[in-house]
């Protein structure tokens, strides 16, 4: 089997089976007694983070935000201290790893100070590599944003009939929206639905969508066009209001 395809499949499998976790694998090499990230390294270290939720981001942002004066003190802008943001991510969301430092958390789920003392004493490049991998799981790239712009313009246009090869955002929006509306299946329950049933339900939703479109388009126009032999209904495009 193609190893890239397998890698993608494994990653997707982890996302479906452990939707609340992000596993970051980093290739490393030991150099001068230090474990450092190395794209060609033979060893692999892994860190498991909890998925960054809206709540996590809200709490951390609030903790690291400060105000900067703009325009000679006429107004202020909210700025985030990015280094501190990352440090709090480690304290809040790093669950476990393959390194020999145990992760201990308090009742509220935050890393214990004593534990953080040891965790933060690993080589900075190694922790940066873990955090970069974690950030990749959150970030929306420019290319993705452009695709969302393009596809949503088509999807929400008055004459839009859906998009081909929907990107993740459009697919999530349509699939989750439809399944919730029709069957009350939410984001957490959908991955557990047998695939055959999922397919059947999706086919039926497609059929329903098609029939609704046909109904909309087959409405006879109420506009009459006057001609030499009397008047006839307009053949123009009817635009749903």
């Amino acid at each position, binding site marked *: 089997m193609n190893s890239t395809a397998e890698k993608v499949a494994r990653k997707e499998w982890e996302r479906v089976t452990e939707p609340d976790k992000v596993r970051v694998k980093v290739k490393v090499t030991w150099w001068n007694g230090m474990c450092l990230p190395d794209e060609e390294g033979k060893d692999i270290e892994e860190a498991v983070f909890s998925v960054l939720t809206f709540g996590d981001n809200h709490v951390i942002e609030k903790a690291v935000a400060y105000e900067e004066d703009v325009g000679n003190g006429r107004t202020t802008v909210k700025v985030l201290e990015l*280094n*501190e943001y990352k440090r709090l991510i480690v304290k809040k969301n790093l669950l476990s790893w393959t390194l020999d*430092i145990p992760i201990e958390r308090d009742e509220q789920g935050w890393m214990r100070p004593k534990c953080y003392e*040891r965790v933060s004493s*690993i080589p*900075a490049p190694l922790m940066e590599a873990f955090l970069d991998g974690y950030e990749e799981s959150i970030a929306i790239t420019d290319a993705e944003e452009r695709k969302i712009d393009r596809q949503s313009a088509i999807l929400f246009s008055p004459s839009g009939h859906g998009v081909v090869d929907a990107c993740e955002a459009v697919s999530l929006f349509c699939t989750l929206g439809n399944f919730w509306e029709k069957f009350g299946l939410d984001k957490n329950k959908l991955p557990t639905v047998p695939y055959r049933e999922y397919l059947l339900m999706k086919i039926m939703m497609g059929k329903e969508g098609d029939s609704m479109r046909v109904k909309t388009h087959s409405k006879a126009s109420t506009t009459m066009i006057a001609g030499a032999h009397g008047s006839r209904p307009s053949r123009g495009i009817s635009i749903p209001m």
Partner: protein
Amino acid sequence: MAVVQAKPELVQAAPQVPRVDERLMKPGKYEITKDTTFTVDIHLRLKEGRWLIMTGPGKGIDSHKAVFRMWTYDEMVELKKMAMSYDVNKRMHTMDQDALNRFKVQRFLMSWTFDKDNPRLKIHHVGGIMTDESWKAFVELQPNISTYILDEMNKVYEFNG
């Protein structure tokens, strides 16, 4: 008759003393200690009154070493916070690389061999940080030497060796 209630006994919270086994335990193999160092080799040849950087040792070449300690994640965050500022005009964070390099040298340059022949270049630390006088000695090196040391140092700190 009023009944005087006995004062509830205050539960003394146990002081947070690390466990004995934790105190005796050596740092794990991934943790940075004062011995986690790397060396920058500097090979110099004098030509027309200027020191040139050479690729390796050889005849007529002065070889020196500068020993740095690796930075931990927490130290990196602290130093980057100090060197980073927010540009209100560009509406973005900017990193003052010169300031960051100075912080790295002052915090992590443990020793070098330039003081062998010249005690004026001896590096002194107070509270684990290089003194400003020692920093002055560093910047008084020929710019090509100090730049070379900084580049080699950053190859490890920023580009993983």
